[in-house]
């Protein structure tokens, strides 16, 4: 099982803050995961349609599109950060 987390407007659009799911086979990178998430219904399609505006973290570390998610326990999606 992998925990997926959504923050800020990504959460507003998906409608959920977190979920524990079994990732389907064939998903090895962040990009693969985003591609699959987009197929999960209109909320997810909408949330990830501007995928260039979304950042990801794998196991609480900033990730890139080609970062591996193979052994990830926790993957988060969020807009560019705006703290400080």
């Amino acid at each position, binding site marked *: 099982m992998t925990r997926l987390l959504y923050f800020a407007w990504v959460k507003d659009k998906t409608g959920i803050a977190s979920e524990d799911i079994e990732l389907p086979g064939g998903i090895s990178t962040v990009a693969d995961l985003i591609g699959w998430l987009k197929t999960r219904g209109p909320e997810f399609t909408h949330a990830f349609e501007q995928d260039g505006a979304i950042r990801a*973290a794998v196991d609480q570390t900033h990730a890139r599109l080609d970062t591996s998610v193979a052994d990830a326990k926790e993957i*988060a999606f969020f807009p560019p*950060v*705006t*703290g*400080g």
Partner: protein
Amino acid sequence: MIRVQRDDFDIGKEIDALRKGRTGIGAIVTFTGTVRDAHGEVTAMTLEHYPGMTEKELARVEAEAHARWPLQATLIVHRVGRLEPGDNIVLTAAASAHREAAFEAARFLIDYLKTSAPFWKRESGPAGDKWVEAAP
């Protein structure tokens, strides 16, 4: 030291704690970020964050500052939750023997935090709520 909290912070007490028991300090620089009162356009601001990752990122930012400058002590305090115009949002502080290192480190802490620590601001105003967009 790093802290993420809902409550306000007292800058004077934070500086006292930073200095306490440490010798060799000649310069202390603090940066305080506050909710700007933009002509009534913002009535409140809500800060969301990613618990767990936030602390890891802030610790990384602080460690990086210590690797770059000779520092006696540093501090990052970041608030989360609902804030109002004039409220404190964030405090960074750096203590060093000399002012150059203290200024540069305090600025590095806030600059680096702003690009890497997982916080998101939502502004509430007469026209409704909106997520603040990151500076390009």
